């Protein structure tokens, strides 16, 4: 896998389609697919392969009464599920992760703010808010980091990322992202390990900020 891409690498898209990508990264994929017809087409191509594998799986006879049972259930009332819709720059999957509320920003210093959406043993995913032209602390990664731009833009040693672009960075990259001029940069960022900050946020404070 290349260190940096502006789109979701094929193996990650395939893993998302197959449901094996950790949830933190899955949220980034689902969000980018919501923003980009190219990403949606890529996902659907992978689902087409999955459909072929399904079609070509050997058929196993089902129980005799299953069909009649099922047909008798078709008119049953349908349980309602909450439906989340895009709000401002936040596509539906982000709104679902926010459970429909506005982001609750917690400051990290220098005007940089975050809202941790979820965190488990496999990784974490957060919203990041970076004021225009502000640098995010220079950091490396223990694992994989996926950053999707929802508003504004940022640039680092590898290039410029605008709305809908995703940066996938592995542990070989140490970078200093800087938000573009104009609007504040809002990103959805997922990691499968804690970030390694070199300055700015002392390492001792990392547990406090959970980054």
């Amino acid at each position, binding site marked *: *896998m290349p260190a940096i891409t502006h789109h979701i*690498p*094929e*193996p*990650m898209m*395939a*893993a998302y*389609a*197959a*449901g*094996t990508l950790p*949830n933190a*990264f*899955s*949220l980034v*994929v*689902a*969000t980018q*697919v*919501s923003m980009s*017809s*190219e990403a*949606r*087409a*890529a*996902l*659907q*191509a*992978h*689902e*087409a*392969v*999955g*459909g*072929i*594998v*399904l*079609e070509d*799986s*050997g*058929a*196993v*006879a*089902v*129980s005799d009464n*299953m*069909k009649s*049972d*099922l*047909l008798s*259930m*078709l008119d049953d009332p*349908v349980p309602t599920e909450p439906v989340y*819709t*895009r709000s401002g720059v936040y*596509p*539906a*999957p982000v709104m*679902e*992760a926010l459970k429909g509320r506005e982001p609750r920003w917690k400051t990290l210093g220098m005007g940089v703010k975050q809202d941790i959406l979820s965190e488990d043993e496999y990784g974490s995913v957060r919203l990041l808010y970076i004021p225009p032209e502000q640098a995010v602390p220079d950091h490396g990664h223990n694992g994989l980091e996926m950053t999707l731009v929802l508003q504004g833009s940022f640039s680092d040693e590898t290039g410029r990322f605008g709305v809908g672009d995703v940066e996938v960075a592995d542990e070989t990259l140490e970078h200093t992202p800087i938000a573009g001029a104009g609007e504040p940069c809002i990103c959805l960022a997922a990691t499968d390990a804690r970030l390694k900050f070199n300055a700015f946020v002392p390492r001792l404070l990392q547990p406090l900020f959970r980054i």
Partner: protein
Amino acid sequence: MIAVRDHRDKAAFASLFDHFAPRLKGFVMRNGTSAAQAEEIVQDVMLTLWRKAHMFDPHRAQVSAWVYQIVRNRQIDVARKENRPMPEALKEEPEAEPDATQIVAIEQETGQLRAALAKLRPEQREVIEKAYLGELTHQEISTQTGLPLGTIKSRIRLGLQRLRHELKDLSE
């Protein structure tokens, strides 16, 4: 599927059941799930097919691709007790006329994908199948399927381009 979607046709649903239920059961049992639990999953998937039929769009996917996504979601719910984040649904265009050319193109593209998969060496095909059965992590997909993914990549690209143009039309 269209009869199920547009006319809530139960006889058409029964034929969908005859086609997909045994395949779904076979698919689900491939990862070691018991026959009894597989049947529960098949029942949930078929019910979802009926209830969410309005979400199906033959201009973008074949029924099998759509069913694949539903069954993987159900399997993940059962295994992990959590929902996989899902993309926003595309806005529907109720007045849009079906575009037979596009529907046939999707069919042909899928046929070519199937042919490309059939040409793989058995061990390559097995790795691809494992990936889509949900048995490989993205790192494993990256390291183990490099060659086969490359082989089918051009097919995926073609399908992708066609879908992309279609999706652009939809969003305009």
